[in-house]
């Protein structure tokens, strides 16, 4: 029979997939993969601050990630070549976070849990956070969908019909910050970006419209969770990475299917 912690792990992964599917699609379309990386690395700094100031880790991460997100969005909005700046910001905030944690007295935490996540340790209250946050993000994306999509296709086109592309970018940043903060415990800082990108990229081969791609990305995320957690349970592999491996296999399968379809069609 399924143990409680397995059920919670699956519920956590499934809940997260609902948000990472459509959000990941935007990350892929807008070529924002770097963004997921940068914010995820900053999350570790958030963990350190949360421990230092004795606030909830989710809240600490959310604040730092949001700050990082706004900074990156501001730089990108100004058209500054941000590649190097971003690399410096992302990795130094990760390193500063790790160093800061070592200074905090009396705290002995399992860092690998934050780097790679520990989905099998998800509590009921974690589940409430994850589902609450995911539903919030999905509602936000649903509300802004058309405007976001138009701004993604072309900022000028969006402006010509009265959509402010800068504001839409802000909504997206906000949604990303929430998801990164929530998924820290599930897949960890180093794998968050992959959970955003891989299911969406895998969904591309199965979709003719943006909406379909977002939907398929959700399904692939859920399926990867089931397979990953199952593998982890039976073969004693680390759960977070197993989920990502499952998604990556899904991506390869989608590539093969898409190529075969193109050859026939």
């Amino acid at each position, binding site marked *: 029979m399924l143990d409680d912690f397995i059920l919670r792990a699956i519920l956590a992964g499934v809940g997260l997939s609902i948000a990472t599917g459509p959000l990941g699609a935007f990350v892929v379309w*807008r070529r924002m993969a770097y963004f997921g990386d940068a914010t995820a690395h900053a999350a570790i700094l958030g963990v350190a601050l949360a421990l230092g100031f004795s606030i909830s880790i989710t809240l600490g991460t959310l604040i730092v990630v949001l700050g990082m997100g706004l900074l990156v969005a501001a730089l990108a909005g100004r058209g500054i070549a941000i590649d190097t700046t971003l690399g410096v910001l992302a990795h130094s905030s990760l390193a500063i976070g790790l160093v800061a944690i070592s200074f905090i007295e009396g705290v002995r935490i399992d860092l690998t849990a934050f780097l790679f996540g520990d989905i099998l340790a998800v509590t009921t209250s974690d589940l409430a956070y994850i589902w609450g946050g995911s539903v919030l993000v999905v509602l936000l994306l649903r509300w802004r969908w058309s405007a976001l999509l138009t701004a993604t*296709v*072309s900022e000028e*086109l969006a402006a*010509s*019909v009265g959509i402010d592309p800068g504001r839409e970018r802000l909504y997206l940043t906000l949604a990303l910050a929430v998801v990164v903060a929530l998924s820290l415990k599930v897949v960890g800082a180093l794998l968050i970006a992959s959970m955003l990108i891989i299911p969406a990229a895998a969904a591309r081969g199965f979709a*003719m419209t*943006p909406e*379909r791609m977002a939907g398929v990305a959700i399904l692939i995320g859920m399926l990867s969770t089931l397979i990953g957690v199952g593998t982890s349970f039976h073969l004693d592999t680390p759960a977070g990475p197993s989920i990502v491996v499952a998604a990556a296999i899904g991506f390869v399968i989608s590539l093969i299917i898409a190529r075969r379809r193109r050859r026939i069609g």
Partner: protein
Amino acid sequence: MNLIEAKNLSVDHGRSAVLDNVNFAISAGEIVTVVGPNGSGKSTFIRSILGVQRATSGTVIRQDGLRIGYVPQKLFIDDTLPMTVTRFLSLPRKQTQANMDKVTRRVGATALDHRQMTSLSGGQFQRILLARALLGAPQILILDEPTQGLDQQGVALFYALIEEVRRELGCAVLMVSHDLHVVMSASDRVICLNGHICCEGTPQVVSAAPEYRALFGVGTGGALALYRHTHDHDHDHDHSHAHEHDPHGRAN
């Protein structure tokens, strides 16, 4: 009544000024063409007019609720973004099939509904962009070098199409172009831009202006002759553009 008005518009990128103290206005039904060499700030100008680019100083005022039909220079749709023609036409507002059929018929790009945007030819793509711009019954069409990537004949056909559409809708047209001789003949007013407004006026005035000649050099001599030639035709036949464009094709 001006649809769009820019007052003392200046835009800096870093330390260099891209637009310097540009004053501009366009009224209902007017056709204004902006010409200028590469890097003259044409695109920045359009981005400012649309409100994407924030002005360093000066103001841009658009009439309240102005319906803009924008046709970009080139639209890069990422390969990872699946987008059928039908879905694209419904950006940002859902359109009825009847409406979409009407505009795609108007621009001569039918039977593409379920094609992916990325699989269209250059000409088809531009026509779909124009169709989308027409969906909102625009009061002004803003065209930013709309014929880039089209061959000579495609360019001529596309401008003829814009002319027809404009006559039907009676909308204003603001066009940025470097296809000087093709676009100038149909314009009420030409603005020659090179960071600042070098000269402006009717096509005759601008093409005779020393500033314009300095910018576009010797090449304009031929274009000018063609322009005058086509202009005469305008008076005779009341806008017979399909045939006007022909001589240009041969000239180039």
